[in-house]
């Protein structure tokens, strides 16, 4: 079967990484202790050569840098929008689909770091905007930061199925989002509208009383509708949503759907749409728990067809990941 092999860092300045150095490269067969080329995913550079040229050593990994917090907007007690000033080069690198950073307070060790998606980019202010939901220890630690915060990045694997979004031009994309998970969809909208793609966003406000992201989507030219998509009590899709999908699939020529919710939400909508239209491709937000972001700790591993995938670095096909036999 077709192997969906893709490492988001391949060919970047962070490649080859420690995985390559230890013979565990996601892409290169020469660096998996096989001694011949079997290169399924090519991004323009030979990882084997890069490693040799670098003295058989991994490139330097990303490091935490202390950054200024410009503003904190409190939406709710447990829902905050941070504006953080970062260097110009990091800003440019984060202006990409799926971008995220690790954040932590300056006072605590590295394992406090938690991945947060970039919602928006502001070049004038030289800042990134992030929507943060306060959950547990790590995010509470962030909440305590008021002036300075530690930022590590850039990371790009916050969206899975990026090959379906990359190089998209003059196409139509439907974004289905719910709550905080809808935030990375803003950056997707920003990038895709630059290439004359039509973005239709359907947002479920989740447990909030309003859709926090709506204004950001609108700013970048998305057509936004607010609707309740899912009944969480019995884990079903609402009738309103089903009607909406029926209409939109008839009316619009949708090429790709981005599922921007939690795993339950993503699974429900992807399967629902897939049985109705098999030609639509899916992207999804990456909901894995991550700790290092470098493919080392293993906390982000998901299993797909018996294979372990380090989802902080490696791409998978969301349809394959969320697919259930009967489609529900």
């Amino acid at each position, binding site marked *: 079967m*077709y192997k969906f092999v893709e490492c988001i860092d391949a060919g970047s300045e962070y490649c080859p990484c420690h995985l390559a150095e230890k013979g565990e490269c996601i892409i290169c067969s*020469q660096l998996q202790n096989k001694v011949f080329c079997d*290169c399924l995913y*090519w991004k323009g550079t030979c990882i084997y*050569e890069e490693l040799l040229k670098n003295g058989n050593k991994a490139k330097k990994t990303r490091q935490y840098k202390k950054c200024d917090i410009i503003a904190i907007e409190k939406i709710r007690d447990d829902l905050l929008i941070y504006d953080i000033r970062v260097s110009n080069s990091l800003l440019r690198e984060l202006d990409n689909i799926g971008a995220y950073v690790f954040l932590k307070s300056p006072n605590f060790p590295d394992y406090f770091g938690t991945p947060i998606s970039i919602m928006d980019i502001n070049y004038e202010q030289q800042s990134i905007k992030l929507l943060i939901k306060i959950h547990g220890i790590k995010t509470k630690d962030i909440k305590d930061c008021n002036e300075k915060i530690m930022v590590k990045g850039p990371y790009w694997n916050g969206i899975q199925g990026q090959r379906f979004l990359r190089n998209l031009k003059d196409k139509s994309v439907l974004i289905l989002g719910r709550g905080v998970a809808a935030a990375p969809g803003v950056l997707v909208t920003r990038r895709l509208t630059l290439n004359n793609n039509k973005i239709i966003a359907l947002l479920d406000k989740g447990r909030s009383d309003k859709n926090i992201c709506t204004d950001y989507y609108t700013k970048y030219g998305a057509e936004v509708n607010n609707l309740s998509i899912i009944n969480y009590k019995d884990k079903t899709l609402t009738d309103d949503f089903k009607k909406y999908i029926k209409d939109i699939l008839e009316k619009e020529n949708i090429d790709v759907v981005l599922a921007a919710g939690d795993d339950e939400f993503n699974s429900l909508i992807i399967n629902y749409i897939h049985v109705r239209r098999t030609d639509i491709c899916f992207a999804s937000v990456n909901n894995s728990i991550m700790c290092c972001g470098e493919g080392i700790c293993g906390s982000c591993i998901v299993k797909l067809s018996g294979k372990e995938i380090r989802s902080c670095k490696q791409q998978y096909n969301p349809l394959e990941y969320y697919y259930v036999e009967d489609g529900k």
Partner: protein
Amino acid sequence: MMNVVVIGGGWAGCAAAIQAKKCGADVLLIERTDMLLGLGNVGGIMRNNGRYTAAEELIALGADDLFNIIDRCTRHKSIEFPGHKHADLYDVTIIEAHVRRYILDMGIRVLFETRVVDVDVEDKKIKAVFLDSGTRIDGDVFIETTGSTGPMGNCIRYGKGCSMCILRCPAYGPRISISQRAGVEDILGMRDDGVFGAMSGSCKLDKDSLSKEIRDELNTKGVYITDVPQEDINPEKLKMKVCQQYALKEFAEKIILLDTGHAKLMTSYYPLEKLRKLKGFENVRFIDPYAGGKANSIRYLSMAPRNDTMKVIGLDNLYVGGEKSGLFVGHTEAIVTGTLAGYNAVRSLMGLNGIELPVSLCTGDIIKYENETKRKKDGLKKRYTFAGSEYFERMKKLNLYTTDKEIINKKVEALMIKDIFKQKLI
């Protein structure tokens, strides 16, 4: 609709596609770069020694299409250089466009800049191939002619690194062994010293960067020969070489240039500083590989086990030709094996058994001989070509070598296979 998918558009793939089309199939040819002919864009030598016989045999068998084009693109006819007689040199700067037009005019569909990366196999049958975009391409029968060159990682591990050859891996992505992806282990060629792979044996200089005297001689005679300075003679380099027909002592002691549009230099690589010390070479620069001062491409790391109908052993519907099908060196060899692969692929579609070429023809004999010898001790260190080394000796010994077209024609007629490659099967 009967549908043949050819992967790799070098000489072997072009020959296979043309043959399958002539037999009446619907043909799709997939090529990773923006050009057909692969290594054929940097070669050019035809009809030297036994290749003359092979070319004429194939023409008598009805596979004259590519030879007609090559003859039209020939710059020099019947020249001589050390160890080689009656060689033709085609113009590498124009040949691709001619072959490409011919193939497209025949109605063969070609996908350029498209890399095949995986296969869908069921019960020893390939159902489809996948492109690196993830697109699935279904087919009834497949022909793999992806060659054996590179890619970068192999050139690094078994050679002196990427030298930026015509296959342009960084730009179009690396070659992939389709048969291996389908579960059939590759066979690997070796060098004399037992290391895997072998290095391409010639490079191209920009003719305009040579002195007027050398240019004139190349343009009129097709050949220019001068001595390698005593201190630069390096016979060790010969051992690494693919082209054993050019691994003669003369090729270490002499600089031999052939006019194929560029000036073909008959050695794997040559440090630029040293080359520029020669008279008339003061301004010289490499055109292929771009880093010809440092290295050349590594080949023969990816051959599929096959039978003598060119079918891959272990798969029901995969055929191979060219370097993918054995330790064959050369355009002529690629055209011979590719043509047979194309023909038998269509026969298999019709439920017919594949044919073998008779061993009383050198084209049939080389296919069988390579297969047998490859399995013997040291067989993987040999290369098989009509143009020289051991196989040309064998041709002479078995009386398979002749330059008399009449004899070849009569032989083919007596075998009752005149023009079989012109037959429509579907």
